């Protein structure tokens, strides 16, 4: 029997869009709902039942000084990484942008070099960093020793470890920001610099503040949000190098989710950590979409 044409068309739409919509709901939205519910329970993986505990999990994460470590460390890590990675990315981009005019090939090679860490497998690179930062045999401390200085224990010093991890985070993300800034710089019409020169802004420093920086505004905002959200997600280096140690000095949100949830099986507690992490990311991604929207309006 032949189906009515509108039924056939409807069926086609269902077959085209239905499966994707179904897996999207099943694998993204349903889990988000479940995690939100679990965050108010004391559920443990494998347990037969659970109890409602209200805001207890959140209180443990946000109010308890001991429980707050993961959040504080994450914010510290982000506070170091975000400005450093963005400003370095911008500096490298400006340098390469200038170099492209005189040495296009060399600039292309350097661009590839700076971007390399973005594509490389971070876990493997972290293992390489571990060797470089080894307290006695590592390249860094051997070099410091040769200069007569005593190198610290980069990854087992409680005060230092988050800085070391942040440095690796910066090393990994500068290339990404550089690429976005390069695109932003290439999009600045050259006649703006001529206009600025006519108006008296002809020194590099003046040119930067009158033309480059304002024109890079939207790119900078986008870069900031992307850098921030990826800083909040820091996991690979922590899992590979410190496992949150020493004494939780490098415990961060995603690692805490992993440890509480999948090592200690405290699903309720881990769910609350997840929701805190989610709120943090949402705050910044919502901002990103606002930015994207305005950019689209301009086009």
């Amino acid at each position, binding site marked *: 029997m032949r189906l009515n044409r509108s039924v056939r068309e409807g069926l086609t739409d269902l077959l085209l869009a239905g499966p994707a919509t179904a897996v999207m709901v099943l694998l993204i939205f349903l889990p988000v709902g479940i995690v939100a519910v679990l965050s108010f329970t004391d559920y443990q993986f494998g347990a037969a039942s659970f109890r409602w505990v209200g805001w207890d999990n959140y209180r443990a994460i946000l109010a308890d000084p001991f429980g707050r470590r993961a959040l504080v460390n994450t914010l510290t890590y982000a506070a170091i990484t975000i400005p450093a990675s963005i400003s370095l990315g911008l500096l490298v981009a400006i340098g390469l942008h200038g170099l492209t005019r005189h040495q296009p090939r060399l600039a292309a090679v350097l661009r590839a070099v700076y971007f390399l860490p973005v594509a490389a*497998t971070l876990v493997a690179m972290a293992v*390489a960093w571990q060797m470089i930062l080894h307290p006695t045999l590592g390249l860094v401390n051997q070099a410091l020793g040769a200069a007569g200085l005593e190198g610290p224990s980069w990854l087992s010093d409680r005060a230092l470890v988050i800085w070391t991890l942040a440095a690796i985070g910066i090393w990994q993300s500068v290339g990404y920001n550089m690429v976005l800034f390069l695109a932003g710089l290439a999009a600045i019409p050259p006649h703006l610099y001529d206009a600025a020169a006519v108006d008296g802004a002809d020194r590099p420093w003046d040119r930067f503040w009158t033309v480059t920086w304002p024109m890079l505004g939207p790119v900078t905002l986008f870069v900031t949000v992307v850098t921030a959200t990826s800083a909040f997600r820091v996991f690979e280096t922590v899992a590979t190098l410190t496992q949150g140690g020493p004494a939780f000095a490098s415990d961060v949100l995603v690692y805490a989710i992993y440890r509480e949830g999948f090592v200690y099986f405290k699903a309720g507690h881990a769910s609350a950590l997840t929701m805190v992490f989610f709120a943090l*990311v949402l705050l910044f991604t919502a901002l990103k979409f606002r930015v994207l929207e305005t950019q689209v309006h301009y086009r």
Partner: protein
Amino acid sequence: MRAPRLLSFALLLIGAAVVLLPFYWMVSLSFKAPDEIFTPTLDLWPNALRWQNYAAALSRTNLLLYLWNGTVVCAGILVFQLLFAVPCAYALAQRRFRGRTLVFGLILAGLLVPFHVTAIPLFLGLARFGLIDTYAALIVPFIASVFGMFLFRQAFAVMPAALFDAARVDGLSEFQIVWRIAFPLALPAATAFGIFSVVAHWNDLFWPLIATTSPDLATPPRGILYFRDRESGDDVGPLMAAAVLVVAPMVVGFLMAQRAFIRGIAAGGLKG
């Protein structure tokens, strides 16, 4: 004017050296003999190119299996992502149906959700079906790529509608239009998405750490950690050789198709 230019050039070179340092050191160590590594003196270069470490990495660990697992998982994820995302994106871009704005709204909302947020319920669900510690556990959670749906929808939306009308007149079904006309035309978007997806899942540690316990299912990053933890640090050469082999596919791929890689990974910034 020449002095500042020289200065900035010098700074760029120093920066590049710092960026390359771990790559260089990893390769250098991978060729060194143990007595070269464990000396208090600094040797920047190995005395000779020794391939023993690579042989050791391949023979004493399941490195080849890890690389194979990584390939299977990345390919599986990408194929299913495309299978689901492309037809849906086409329907959203080139057909009108009830619920279209709702589905697109869900996609935009989905972009805001980092994968980590869904990990606990996904683990519960996979455990319920007894799928933990299988390939399926590594692949299934990623098959709904809202990022892919978004990217392809944007690509399809700018294609002229007349092209698809022509295909309908020529007798193609909607599914034939999706795979024979729309998808080949979206090849730039598909390449960008494919690179993004493969790089992300080849390099991922978070989910493999959760979803598998058996070393036989380890993906390359997970495998590196197995190797390191077992050798407890006294077998640096082979460990570095293994790291080189894990990083190599991504690095080689990037160097061969820089433009596509950068576009793919940069586009990934759209995802939360």
